[in-house]
């Protein structure tokens, strides 16, 4: 889906659109967070401003060249290039490497679930197969890592085709659960005594991480930000971490570009046709079984690369790394949150997958109250995004992107005035309840109540307002009864 040309002329070209404003704000926040660890807030603020201004100038020129949302991704890429220098410590750089790793997995899921509409909960196992094969070949048999990767990725792709076979017979939830079963079989298989010699059983396999070649290492060490990395040991860590980051970034970018091309290719269109209606696709001459299995195969290729990158970055595999929720369910959830069947959605999703738990953890440790409720906050976030942005974040941004500031203002105005007074009465009542909760029960519970306020369908508030009205017979019902639609 392509955006039509932007509405910008003259001075408008240099003014951020509403969606771009959101992006810039996010960028500022992100820079600020990254610098949060250093003592000097002035330096942090200034560098954030510099980053944003540079990003904006580059962005405007890119936007002039490209009329759709690709330029956002390009902008993101440019920022990604300097991530090691934005990070306050190597841990954050490591997390960014993992963003790239899981982006690959989510790209694969996007092919099979987003474009082709086949729900797979088994992709965790595919990543695991790839990572384990590479680990076994390189640590037990002393293979060269890259040779091991070739084998690992090929075998995983083959497995992907096998995982696609159930898709030929099963529909919807049945397929979801068949693939879920595949993901559930994988960890116990690794733990079997029979294979323990190879897989290391519950302990798993360790491998030393790849270290950068001499010249690259010395270059990175030399240019490490001096305030964050002071001694030689820290600088070496920085060089190592950054090197792996750039490798994963390269893999991620290649993955993204191929995904984008795939989406627009004949394959991509055939996948979408299969998703929308198998019968119609068949009548258009599309070989539905072939395309379904191929979709699984391609997505397994991505998963195989994800597994390889996983092994490079983390250098440790154990059955617990490939547990169901972490590697099969959550990536799918974040894909949907990012935006199914889009190019940018998976990127947003991968970012959220790695950072949301960490940011929530940060908030939790800062505010004490939330400490044991991190899962609850993550859960609420899933719910809020899914109910208020049904097309995912990317879809939401795309919708806003088509708006100008005037349209946005006009639409919000219209939104507010289409609501019945009952809605506002109910909403006000709910808001009062939230404030009372914050006052007398605790902030945490007020946050939960607030989330509920955002999520609940509007007619609930009209209903609450209606109760108020009945309690006050003096109020008159609107002449034309307008129940609210969400």
């Amino acid at each position, binding site marked *: 889906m392509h955006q039509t040309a932007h509405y910008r002329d003259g001075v408008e070209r240099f003014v951020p659109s509403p969606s771009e404003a959101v992006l810039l704000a996010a960028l500022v926040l992100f820079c600020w967070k990254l610098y949060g660890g250093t003592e000097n807030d002035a330096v942090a603020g200034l560098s954030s401003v510099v980053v944003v201004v540079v990003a904006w100038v580059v962005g405007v020129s890119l936007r002039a060249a490209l009329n759709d949302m690709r330029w956002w991704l390009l902008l993101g890429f440019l920022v990604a290039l300097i991530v090691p220098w934005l990070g306050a410590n190597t841990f954050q750089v490591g997390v960014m490497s993992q963003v790239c790793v899981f982006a690959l997995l989510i790209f694969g899921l996007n092919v099979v*679930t987003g474009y082709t509409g086949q*729900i797979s909960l088994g992709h965790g196992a595919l990543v695991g197969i790839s990572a384990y094969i590479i680990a076994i070949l390189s640590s037990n048999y002393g293979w060269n890592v890259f040779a091991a990767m070739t084998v690992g990725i090929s075998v995983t792709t083959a497995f992907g085709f096998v995982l696609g*076979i*159930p898709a030929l*017979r*099963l*529909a*919807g*939830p*049945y397929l*979801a*659960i*068949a693939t*879920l*079963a*595949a993901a*559930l*079989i994988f960890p*116990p*298989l690794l*733990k*079997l*005594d029979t294979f323990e010699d190879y897989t290391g059983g519950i302990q798993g396999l360790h491998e030393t991480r790849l270290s950068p070649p001499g010249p690259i290492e010395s270059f990175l060490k030399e240019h490490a930000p001096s305030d964050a990395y002071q001694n030689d040991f820290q600088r070496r860590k920085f060089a190592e971490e950054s090197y792996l980051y750039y490798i994963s970034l390269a893999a991620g970018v290649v993955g993204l570009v191929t995904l984008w091309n795939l989406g627009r290719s004949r394959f991509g269109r055939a996948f979408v046709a299969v998703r929308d*209606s*198998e*019968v*119609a696709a068949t009548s258009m001459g599309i070989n539905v079984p072939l395309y379904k299995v191929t979709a699984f195969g391609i997505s397994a290729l991505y998963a195989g690369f994800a597994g390889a990158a996983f092994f490079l970055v983390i250098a440790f595999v154990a059955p617990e790394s490939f547990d*169901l929720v972490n590697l099969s*369910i959550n990536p799918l*959830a974040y894909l*949907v*949150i990012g935006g*199914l069947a889009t190019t940018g959605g998976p990127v947003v999703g991968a970012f959220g997958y790695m950072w949301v738990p960490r940011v929530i953890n940060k908030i939790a440790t800062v505010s004490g109250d939330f400490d*044991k*409720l*991190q*899962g*609850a*906050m*993550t*859960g*609420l*976030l*899933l*719910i809020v995004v*899914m*109910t*208020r942005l*049904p097309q995912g974040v990317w879809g939401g941004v795309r919708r806003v992107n088509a708006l100008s500031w005037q349209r946005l203002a006009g639409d919000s105005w219209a939104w507010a005035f289409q609501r019945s007074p009952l809605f506002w009465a109910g909403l006000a009542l709910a808001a009062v309840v939230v404030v009372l909760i914050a006052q007398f029960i605790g902030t945490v519970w007020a946050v939960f109540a607030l989330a*509920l306020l955002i*999520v*609940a*369908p509007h007619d*609930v508030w009209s209903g609450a307002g209606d109760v108020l009205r009945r309690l006050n017979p003096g109020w008159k019902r609107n002449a034309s009864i307008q129940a609210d639609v*969400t």
Partner: protein
Amino acid sequence: METFFAQLANGASTGALYGLLALALVFIFRATDVVNFAQGEMAMFSTYLGWSISRPLSLSWIPFLGVDRHLNLLTWRPEVFGLPLYLGSENDGLTRLGYLVVLVVTVAIAFVMGALIERLLIRPSEGKNLLNAVIVTLGIFAFLNSLANFRYGPVPQTYPAPFRGDAVDFGLFKMSQHSLFALVVAAVLMIAVYVFFQRTKLGLGVRAAALNPSASQLMGINTGRMLTLGWALAAAIGCVAGMLIAPALSGISPNLMFGILLYGFAAAVLGGLDSALGAVVGGIAVGVGQSMVVQYVGSQWSDIIAFGLIIAILMVRPTGLFGAPAVKKV
């Protein structure tokens, strides 16, 4: 042979509990087409609520009653003219009437909780991509799990059970009273669900609303209410399952239900997601299979064989053993 039958009985009663959870999944699937990942956690949470109200409840908030009055539902012993109305008791003072009261109150709370979840959280994502609703259930899953950890802590709590006397001897094998009770409850609920869907007007309404919402509205069915009802009943069934599972295992803990939910999924799919009979039969099959594998092959094989079989069976019968064959939509 002795052990074989013992394992059979054992597996059947655990399986009946899987089946109950599967029954709840089937309920939601028939009403809304959603596979509910939060089913286990909903059951876990309401089971905890049952645990809370089965503690001695402080009544100090009622004026004029005195500060140290407590209400302990579980040991309630009403008598009429010296005749005990409390249906027998266990040696720790628990009465069956008390248990029944706790059960009914908890199930009622679960019912309301299910209705609220549908109305407030699921409804906004309805009619859009089906995956959205599934992700919302994942969110509910994370939310309830973490809330239970926060409120009750990770340590398992012992859970009351109404029948804890000596195991019943059937000659070939023995079966604990609780297992027998669980089997009976599962059977009764299965029949109730079947009758509800096939024989009552309301059940017909729920089925119609799932099939074709706009046509159902034209028949005067409030489709929204049917969905809410479906979720509420599923939550209630799940709650019963939880209250029976907790005493059968090591008690109630926040992470108790996820593993069981996976077997519940397996059971539901095995039986066919739209079949009440299938859910319970599937559950028993999974339970028996699991205990046989643990006994004769080795416990580390149990998940591998259980889920491997699910895949194999689905490949032969794509909508489970009792599911209606899929209708391809143009």
